[in-house]
Structures are given as structure tokens and as C-alpha cells.
């Protein structure tokens, strides 16, 4: 276990270093004037790269992680946006695990046409682009509003309703994924000896499923949680982007120079905020690692309890 933690720590450090190295790649804009035209060219300048890196390292050495473009500490920035995202992720994970398990139970418990098609839908959906599905869902909801369905806020992060809507959208794909995992793990238990024995003794199928199959499958299910989580993070960007949820992904996306621009704003390159990118990416990496470690610890606990 200790080796595992050390290994994870080492990996984490490597990742952060890679992020810093990438984020500070020089994109120095040089303005070239030709006749009456002026345009910017991004150049690669190794010396500048060194300077930027050492500047950054020196800043960290001085105890600061940098500032955003308004001169506020990136940590304050991170705190604001990341806490929103964390709440969203939390709610979505709970929904995903709950719905996923319920669906898996339904799919394995029943063999009818509904269960089978529910299963197929679950598998098929994973092959679809999430953003397309989200757009379609949005359109359907907007259409419902026009039909007189009570309106609620679809965009942003201020209202409870938009928050929940985003959480539901976010949980959509992970719960399908989770349901598939749980279902196939449950099924892999199917043929095992103790089940046949229990069935023979007339134990109810639902009891069997929950008390035995699920309990037995728990370790392997928990092992899948980090993957589901990665899934969730990937979806998070799309959800935040499409619902204008001002969370950490959205902020990272902004810091990468993507702003809603209008005629009067400046070109995007000028908005790239390297320290912000580094901090947010580190945040997401750390999240990944934490979930990874958490799932490992959980697995260990569960297995140990079962062994004892």
C-alpha cells in the first residue's frame, strides 16, 4: 500500500511537471508589419521558454502560484470555480451510482423486452457523442417549455434548477457506463456455485442479487469507479460548456484563451492565462489521483472484510 501511494505521488509530480512544461511553451507573439498590414506570428523561442519557466518557478519559490488576469491569486480563483464543479461532480456521481446500480439491477433481474432494450440503449448510448445528446436534450426541454411545461432555468449556475439540470446531464453517460459495468459483473457471478446452491434452496432472486451477487461483485465494481470518474470529467467540460455552468472546466477553457468575443474585444491569444491553466489542470489531475487512491483503499477494505 505504501509503495502504491509513493508511486502515485511520483506520478502526480510527473504529471504536474508535464503540465507546467506544456502550459509555458512559448507562444510569443511577434508582430510583423508588411506594407500596411500588421499581423501576429507565434514563435517558438527556446530562450524565452527558459525564461518563462524560471520566472514561474521563482514565483512558486516565493510562495505564490500566480495570478489571473485581474491580478487575483489563482487559488482564490480556483476556490470559487472548483467548489462549484465539485458540487456538481458530487451530485452527478451520486445520481450516476444510484441510477447505474438501479438500472443494472433491473437489467439483470428481468429478462423481458424492456430490460433487454434498456440494456441495448445503455450500450448504444456509449457510442454516441455526448454533446450531441446534450444538445438534443436541451432542445427537447425547450420544446417542452413552449408546450406549456413549467419553465425552469437551463443555463448558468445560480439557480438550483439549472444546477440540478447540469448534474442530471452530467450523470447521464456515467450512469449508463456504470450500469453496464455493474450488470456485467453481476452476470459474471451468475454461474457460480453458491448461487446455484442458493437458488436451489429457494432464495428469492432479488435477495440473491442484492445480498450475494452485488456484495461479491463490490470490489470489482469499486475498481471501476475511477474509470467512471474519468468519464465524468470528460463529460464535465461539455456540460459546463453547453449550459454555461461557470465551473472549473469552463474556467480552464476560458483561461486557454477561449472567450466569447465580440467586435470590440481583443484577440484570444491575449487572454491565455498560464498560471490559471496550470492550477486548474493540477486540480483535475489531483482529483483523478484522489479517486484512484480512494478506490484502491476501498477495494482493500472491502476485500479484507470479506476475507475476515
Amino acid at each position, binding site marked *: 500500500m505504501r509503495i502504491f501511494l509513493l508511486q502515485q505521488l511520483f506520478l502526480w509530480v510527473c504529471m504536474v511537471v508535464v503540465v507546467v512544461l506544456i*502550459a509555458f511553451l512559448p507562444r510569443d507573439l511577434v508582430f510583423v508589419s508588411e506594407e500596411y498590414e500588421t499581423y501576429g506570428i507565434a514563435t517558438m523561442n527556446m530562450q524565452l521558454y527558459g525564461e518563462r519557466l524560471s520566472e514561474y518557478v521563482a514565483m512558486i519559490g516565493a510562495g505564490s502560484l500566480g495570478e489571473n488576469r485581474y491580478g487575483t491569486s489563482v487559488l482564490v480563483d480556483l476556490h470559487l470555480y472548483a467548489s462549484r464543479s465539485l458540487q456538481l461532480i458530487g451530485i452527478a456521481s451520486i445520481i450516476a451510482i444510484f441510477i447505474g446500480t438501479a438500472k443494472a439491477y433491473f437489467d439483470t433481474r428481468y429478462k423481458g423486452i424492456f430490460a433487454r432494450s434498456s440494456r441495448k440503449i445503455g450500450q448504444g448510448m456509449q457510442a454516441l457523442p455526448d454533446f450531441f445528446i446534450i444538445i438534443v436534450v436541451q432542445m427537447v426541454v425547450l420544446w417542452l417549455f413552449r408546450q406549456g411545461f413549467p419553465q425552469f432555468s437551463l443555463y448558468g449556475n445560480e439557480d438550483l434548477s439549472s444546477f440540478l439540470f447540469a448534474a442530471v446531464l452530467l450523470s447521464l453517460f456515467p450512469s449508463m457506463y456504470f450500469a453496464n459495468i455493474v450488470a456485467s459483473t453481476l452476470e459474471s457471478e451468475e454461474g457460480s456455485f453458491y448461487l446455484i446452491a442458493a437458488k436451489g434452496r429457494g432464495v428469492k432472486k432479488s435477495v440473491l442479487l442484492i445480498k450475494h451477487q452485488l456484495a461479491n461483485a463490490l470490489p470489482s465494481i469499486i475498481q471501476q469507479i475511477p474509470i467512471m470518474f474519468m468519464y465524468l470529467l470528460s463529460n464535465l467540460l461539455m456540460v459546463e460548456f453547453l449550459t454555461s455552468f461557470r465551473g472549473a472546466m469552463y474556467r480552464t477553457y476560458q483561461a486557454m484563451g477561449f472567450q466569447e468575443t465580440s467586435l470590440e474585444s481583443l484577440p484570444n491569444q491575449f487572454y491565455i492565462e498560464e498560471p490559471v491553466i496550470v492550477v486548474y489542470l493540477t486540480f483535475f489531475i489531483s482529483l483523478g489521483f484522489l479517486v484512484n487512491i480512494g478506490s484502491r483503499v476501498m477495494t482493500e477494505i472491502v476485500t479484507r472484510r470479506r476475507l475476515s
Partner: protein
Amino acid sequence: MSGPSPGSTKQVNTEPPMPEAKEQKKSYSPTKLIVKRFFANKLAVAGVFMFLLVVIFSFSAPLFVEHDPAQTNPLNTYAEPSADHWLGTNSSGQDNFARLVYGGQISLQVGVFIMLIVSVIGVVLGSISGYFGGWIDSIIMRVTDLFLIFPFLLLVLTVVTILQNVNVAILVITLGLIVWPNITRILRGTYLTLREREFIYSARAAGATDLRIIMKHMIPNAIGPIIVNATIIMAQMIILESALSFIGFGIPAPTPSWGAMLNEARSLNILTGMPWAWMPPGIMIVITVLSINFIGDGLRDAFDPKSSRK
């Protein structure tokens, strides 16, 4: 599924088929048997059919599309479908139908090329890792860990942001360099089991070099998982490319792209009022990806009947 989940259920870690298939009741060769099993799978055949349609649709574009997908017409923006513009025009007055068709070429190209790059990297590294084991294996595996733990889309975004001026080639290479760990891991697993097979031992005993063993014995026997995973990668990459274009980080305008077309649906008016502008590219992505997935499932079942699920 824009961020292909590492090792999702779709990633099949099929057991390599035995070199001599046991069920050779008749005189079918293993290859023929695979083909036969594949074509017995209705969904897979439908997949092939759909996929071919998409390919033909996209690549025969010059024959039936008279508009240039990049040609803007500022006086005819947001046009409704008409005989001239079958799917109307977009915000720059470009013909949506032409963009749909030519966008397919881009999507398919991106999918195929990334698939090739990733397969090559995956096979090479997977072979090295799985065959030799030891320290080189653990290094490669730790590196794949690094990639797998990272929010995938974000990594791509970061790289694309830094690179700026993205074109198809740059995008393909970037994605290829980021996506390889998945397939590498799976192939490594395959090789680990293969390594313990008798025929490898005998080849080694006969004095074959490592390279020869890998090339002559291991790769041919791992061809099933390689092909299956390659198709899956291709489907994922098509989605990924459209996702990137969708959020504005993909191949820049005026190159047509399905994702970029979908982006227009972010405007409320277009989302609710002009479904013809964004539904078709969405449906095309779904059709393409589904057909590739059907093919992948069919191939998996054909290569390894045991893995097929009820």
C-alpha cells in the same frame, strides 16, 4: 463519449485465438471461419453496409455537390432549405449540405489516420512491453498510467491551445500521441498470455530472434484484438474530432467539419428554429460511429466467439 474512457467495456481484451482453432469440424481455414462468422452477424453486416454508405456519400461528393463547402456568401446567410441549398446555409452563407458531405471526408480521414498511428504505436510499445517485460515494461506501463489518469479532453485542449494554427495533420498527430496508451495496455495483456504459449517456446528453442518471434508469431496471433481495438479507436476519434471542433478547438474554418456544424446549435434560434442546420451532422456522426461499433462488435465475436455476450 468525447473522452474515450480508458478501458471502457468496449475495450475488448479478447483472448487470442488458438493458432489451431479447435472447432475445425469442416475444412474451413481460420480466416474463412472468421469471415463466415462475421457475415453471420446481422448487425455487423448492417454496420458494414452503413459504413460503406457513409464513405461513398462523403467521397463521391464532387459528383453531386455543386457548392464549394468553403465558399462564403455573405448575402445568403441562414438560408432555409431550398432546391439550391438542400440544407440551407450557415452563418457565413456556406452551403450546409456541401459542408455535411465534405465534413464527412474530414471526419473519416481523421478517424482512419489516428487509428493507423495509434495502432502502430500500440503494437510496437505493446509488443515490447508484453514480450520483454521487466523494467522496460514497467516504464511503459507507468507512462500509460500517466495518460490514463488525465482528463483526456483537457489534455488535448491544452496541447491544441499551445500549438495554435491546427490543421488536419497536426490534429491527427497530436491525438495519436495522446490516445496510444489504451491500446498499448490491451495489447500488452494479450502478449503476456501469448508469451506463455507452447509455440512461442518452441520458436524460441529453435533459435528464432526476438524480432522474428514478435513479427512472425505474436503479431499474427494478436491480430484479432488489434483490429477490434483499432475500429473502436476509430469510432472514438471521430467523436473526439467532432467534439473538439464543436467547442472551437478542432480544425479551423473554413475546413468543413461535422462538429463545427453542430456548434451552430448553440444559438437558441438555430437550436429550436433551424434543425436542418445541425441535425444532419449530428445524425451522420451517430450513424458513422454506430456502424463502426457494430463492425467492431462483429469482428470481436468473429475472432473470438467465446467473448460474445448474450
